[in-house]
């Protein structure tokens, strides 16, 4: 490859800096103003202008270029090298030698074809003459035999359960004498679906009917939790009698890295290289884990091609990053538009280039270009484009829903799929141009932020719900919900877009809840501002329940009322109203959507467990209120006690309510760790409740988390704590609370990398918890990364000016760095939130002491001492202040006191910078030893 240098002259530094500066400045402008801006910047400096313009040009094309890390990009090179065999034989399975040989019980007859994974042979059972032919896929060298065979054994039971007339059976698998893995499958003689349809000149309707059969076969596999991962025409064969047969179900998984479905090097390599990229979903291209909606995507590409004769994407080059870019970033044109194109494609078995024209395409569909275009535009365009959405959550939720829409279309009934609502485009716009935030988006943010639940009504009819669950959800515990667009009740009505955006954010949040299958917004958006009967809509959408609501705007206040109705009996399951202040528009992280999702998750969780002795109604209500208070608790001490009271009440109503005990335990550990209660008051209670929760439910991840906190914060039993965390995460790998808490433990142990990993996960799992982000700043402090502490806590404080903890960390970090002025300011901001509590007094004390301001330091000490007569004040706070004041003896005395009183701070002395100047002292080493924190 030549480098095709466009500039051989290397610019000197000064010139280069100028080029870079102008390039960046130009990029920041709107495209249409760039030319004028360049004129201004470059004047008559032609070469500057040329350089900048060529960079801009390159930038506009470069999108995904080098965004995929080299390791994933080039793992093929490793693989060839590691096999120590010539690269050209990468597919070599010693092809000639295997013909007429036996593989297992089969006699190999001839090669049927080969591809990235290996070679497929036609074979016959050697011991039974009448047995049908089989196809044997022999995996090429370079794939690990043991692993594939092991995985095959794991998958075998599941794959063998796939008994469907339209799915090719999987018979057997093993390793050849040469140690190559093989898989024996039903031999299907047929034609790829695209070729078949063209050859038989099937009309659009006939194609759709055939496609519905294919969809229902995929649905069968999905019900068995098997994702195909490699759906493409060559895996969808049509036999001579017109029966579709799907090949290779689950094979991609067996041949991929691991059953856990993690995105790994090998996984990526396999998917990326061996799977036909034209049909791969964006998540597949990115090497992320795949779900049933990835199959829906691939089916969408196949349908696109069946209907229009074209593929949705045309990469400008075959380089992997180029393809990845196109799949991940380009919006496909509508199928009805694609039929107008003339293009040269290589496809089918021959791989020879063919020219596709509107005439050829419509001829193969037994129609004319105009008619075909009309036929596709509207419903069919929408159906296909819903499948092809980049975000998997916004595709059809299931192949059944996909098939249903095709059925509705064929029956000439209104379909569910709709064009992307304008808000989605708004979303993309924000992503691309973060600087420019449209006014409408600000109002969306208003709806989603700073909203506080005021009144809660909860009418949970257990019997009704469980009978519904039994009838309406045959496939297990998943409840289906449709969220209807919010109605506008105010005199100044809210824009439709905003309400759809609001609805959509609730849908998105709910999608993340395990036990809920939520219908995509596209299925409900047509009810926007329509007069509808919620029950009828619910039945039409085949859901268990419908969530509907209204938004009211009064001056700068918003009020949102939501209610959930059970479709089977029309009863109200849940209702709640939220109010929020418009003036708080861009602040705060807690969105109403996540509140709703959280409340519903708790609710539905309970609904699904109704067979067990379930807490009664009043216990439920108290529990929900407690949960809410706990979420808000980091801001306000009153909330912690409110949470405690609610959970205690829940337990009084229902003494066997495991979740309430677990949450009560966590409330007490939180109260202890934040100094709201003394450790001796809080942790033993926490332990009592955590143990009780585990008696009632040994698999309660939250109870294990609480126990882990008690072991580390109070018992200082590090090994036991670690084990409990691991147990919790094993039980609930997606528990944000558990990941967050574990990251805190790991940071105190000095295991910063692991800590960061879990902290990132917690944040990803629950981005609404501002405290998770705040505590990250503390971890940076533990790691002695003070600039990062300041950066992180500043960021948190900008997001949420009430984030108390962020100011504390900010203040201490500034003190350590010698920025006493900023440090004191942060301390005052913290004090403004609490109205003056020991921690914010303490951080100001640190600043005074380090600044050698003895008078103020002593005043803080005196104040803390007098405070401690009325409430709990952690003695460790004075350890730090005396340390900074230079009084080591007093510091060590108080450290002994902290040790005796089980101060929470003691568990962090291994890493905490505030005691750094004590570390060289033998008394400190002794303390570390006493606490089992020495290495």
């Amino acid at each position: 490859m030549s480098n095709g240098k466009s500039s051989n002259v290397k610019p000197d530094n000064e010139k280069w800096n100028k080029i870079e500066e102008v390039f960046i400045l130009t990029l920041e402008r709107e495209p249409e103003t760039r030319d004028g801006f360049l004129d201004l910047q470059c004047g008559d400096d032609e070469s500057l202008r040329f350089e900048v313009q060529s960079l801009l040009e390159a930038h506009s094309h470069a999108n995904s270029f080098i965004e995929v890390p080299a390791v994933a990009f080039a793992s093929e090179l490793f693989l060839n090298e590691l096999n120590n065999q010539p690269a050209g034989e990468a597919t070599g399975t010693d092809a000639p030698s295997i013909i007429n040989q036996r593989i297992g019980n089969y006699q190999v007859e001839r090669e049927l074809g080969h591809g990235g994974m290996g070679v497929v042979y036609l074979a016959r059972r050697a011991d039974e003459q009448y047995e049908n032919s089989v196809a044997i896929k022999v995996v090429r060298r370079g794939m690990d035999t043991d692993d594939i065979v092991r995985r095959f054994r794991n998958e075998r039971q599941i794959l063998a359960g796939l008994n469907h007339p339209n799915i090719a059976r999987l018979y057997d698998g093993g390793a050849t004498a040469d140690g190559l893995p093989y898989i024996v499958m039903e031999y299907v003689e047929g034609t790829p679906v695209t070729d078949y349809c063209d050859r038989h000149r099937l009309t659009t309707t006939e194609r759709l009917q055939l496609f519905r059969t294919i969809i229902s076969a995929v649905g069968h596999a999905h019900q068995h939790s098997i994702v195909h991962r490699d759906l493409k025409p060559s895996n969808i064969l049509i036999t001579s009698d017109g029966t579709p047969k799907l090949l290779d179900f689950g094979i991609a998984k067996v041949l991929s890295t691991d059953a856990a479905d993690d995105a790994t090097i090998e996984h990526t390599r396999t998917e990326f290289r061996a799977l036909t990229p034209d049909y791969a979903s964006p998540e597949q291209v990115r090497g992320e884990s795949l779900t049933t909606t990835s199959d829906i995507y691939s089916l969408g590409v196949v349908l696109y091609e069946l209907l229009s004769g074209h593929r949705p994407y045309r990469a400008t080059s075959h380089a992997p990053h180029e393809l990845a870019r196109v799949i991940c970033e380009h919006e496909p044109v509508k199928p009805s538009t694609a039929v107008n194109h003339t293009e040269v494609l290589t496809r089918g078995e021959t791989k020879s280039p063919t020219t596709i024209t509107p005439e050829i395409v419509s001829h193969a569909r037994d129609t004319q270009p105009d008619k075909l275009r009309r036929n596709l535009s509207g419903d069919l365009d929408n159906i296909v484009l819903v499948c092809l959405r980049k975000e998997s959550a916004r595709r059809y939720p299931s192949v059944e829903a996909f098939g249903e829409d095709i059925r509705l279309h064929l029956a000439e009934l209104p379909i569910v799929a709709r064009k992307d609502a304008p808000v989605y485009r708004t979303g993309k716009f924000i992503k691309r141009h973060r600087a420019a935030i449209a006014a409408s988006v600000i109002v969306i943010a208003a709806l989603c932020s700073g909203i506080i639940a005021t009144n809660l009504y909860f009418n949970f009819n257990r019997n009704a719900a469980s009978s519904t669950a039994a009838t309406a959800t045959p496939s297990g515990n998943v409840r289906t919900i449709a969220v209807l667009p919010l109605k506008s009740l105010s005199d100044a009505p809210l824009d439709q877009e905003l309400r759809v955006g609001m609805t959509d954010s609730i849908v998105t949040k709910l999608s993340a809840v395990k036990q809920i299958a939520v219908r995509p917004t596209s299925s409900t958006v047509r009810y926007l501002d329509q007069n509808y009967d919620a029950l009828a809509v619910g039945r039409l959408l085949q859901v268990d329940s419908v969530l509907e609501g209204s938004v009211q705007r009064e001056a700068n206040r918003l009020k949102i009322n939501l209610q959930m109705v059970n479709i089977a009996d029309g009863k109200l399951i849940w209702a709640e109203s939220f109010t929020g202040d418009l003036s708080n528009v861009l602040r705060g992280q807690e969105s109403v959507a996540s509140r709703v999702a959280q409340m519903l998750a708790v609710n539905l969780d309970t609904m699904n467990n109704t067979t067990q002795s379930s807490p009664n109604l009043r216990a439920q209500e108290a529990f929900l209120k407690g949960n809410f208070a706990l979420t808000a608790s980091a801001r306000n001490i009153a909330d912690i006690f409110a949470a405690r009271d609610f959970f205690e009440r829940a337990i009084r109503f229902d003494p066997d309510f495991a979740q309430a005990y677990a949450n009560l335990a966590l409330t007490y550990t939180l109260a202890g760790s934040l100094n709201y209660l003394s450790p001796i008051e809080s942790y033993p209670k926490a332990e009592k409740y955590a143990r009780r929760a585990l008696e009632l439910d040994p698999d309660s991840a939250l109870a294990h988390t609480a126990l882990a906190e008690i072991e580390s914060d109070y018992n200082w039993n590090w090994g036991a704590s670690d084990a409990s965390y691991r147990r919790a995460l094993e039980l609930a790998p997606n528990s944000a609370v558990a990941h967050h808490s574990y990251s805190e433990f790991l940071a105190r142990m000095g295991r910063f990398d692991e800590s960061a990993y879990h902290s990132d996960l917690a944040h990803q799992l629950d981005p609404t918890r501002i405290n998770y982000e705040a505590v990250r700043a503390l971890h940076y402090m533990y790691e002695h990364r003070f600039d990062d502490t300041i950066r992180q806590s500043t960021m948190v404080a900008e997001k949420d000016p009430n984030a108390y903890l962020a100011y504390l960390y900010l203040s201490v970090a500034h003190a350590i760095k010698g920025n006493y002025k900023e440090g004191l300011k942060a301390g005052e901001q913290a004090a403004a939130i609490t109205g003056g509590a020991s921690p914010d007094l303490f951080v100001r004390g640190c600043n005074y002491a380090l600044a050698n301001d003895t008078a103020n330091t002593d005043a803080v000490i005196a104040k803390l001492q007098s405070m401690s007569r009325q409430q709990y004040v952690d003695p460790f706070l004075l350890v730090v202040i005396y340390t900074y004041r230079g009084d080591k003896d007093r510091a060590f005395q108080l450290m002994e006191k902290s040790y005796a009183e089980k101060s929470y701070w003691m568990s962090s002395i291994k890493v905490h910078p505030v005691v750094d100047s004590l570390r060289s002292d033998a008394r400190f080493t002794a303390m570390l030893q006493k606490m089992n924190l020495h290495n």
Partner: protein
Amino acid sequence: MGDDVNDSPPPDVTQMLIEWNDSGNAPARLMPLVYDELRRLARSYLRRERPDHTLQPTALVHEAYLRLVDQSRIKWQNRAHFFGIAAQMMRRILIDHARAHASEKRGGARQRLSLDEAAFLPEERAADLIALDDALKQLALTDKRKSQVVELRFFGGLSVNETAEVLGVHPATVDRDWIVAKAWLYRELGKGEAD
């Protein structure tokens, strides 16, 4: 097949990192150690010797770090140094392999394979990587830090924040460098004129 997994305890990379911090110079023995470990890890993952692993494509460097370095003994600055070296070594490994691959292809005139994924043949990737490496060397002459940003992110698989940590700059600087470097490299590789 050559070198297999070596179970002898790894030499004290941690100590080397600490000394490096003190002396200001990278110890000569460090690079080959990191090179070997990365190579060994990559091979072991590609062979799937560890079915339970959860390695991300970007995680090789991190994995090597966790294996070679005792976290409790070092400071985050040491880790930054390690990541810097590791990214450099990843680049070297990949380019070595790409070159070996490319020369092999030239040596034996093999028949072209008619595979589905013909467009994804390794030789194209090899050529792409080598060209990128060359262009990156050019970039280093003009703007060293930008070439380092690409090395750390593309070859090392590091995040923006980690890259910022290694280079001792603000993450926003890394973002900006990345945009400029990407455009520059794309232009140099002549991709802008493709199709």
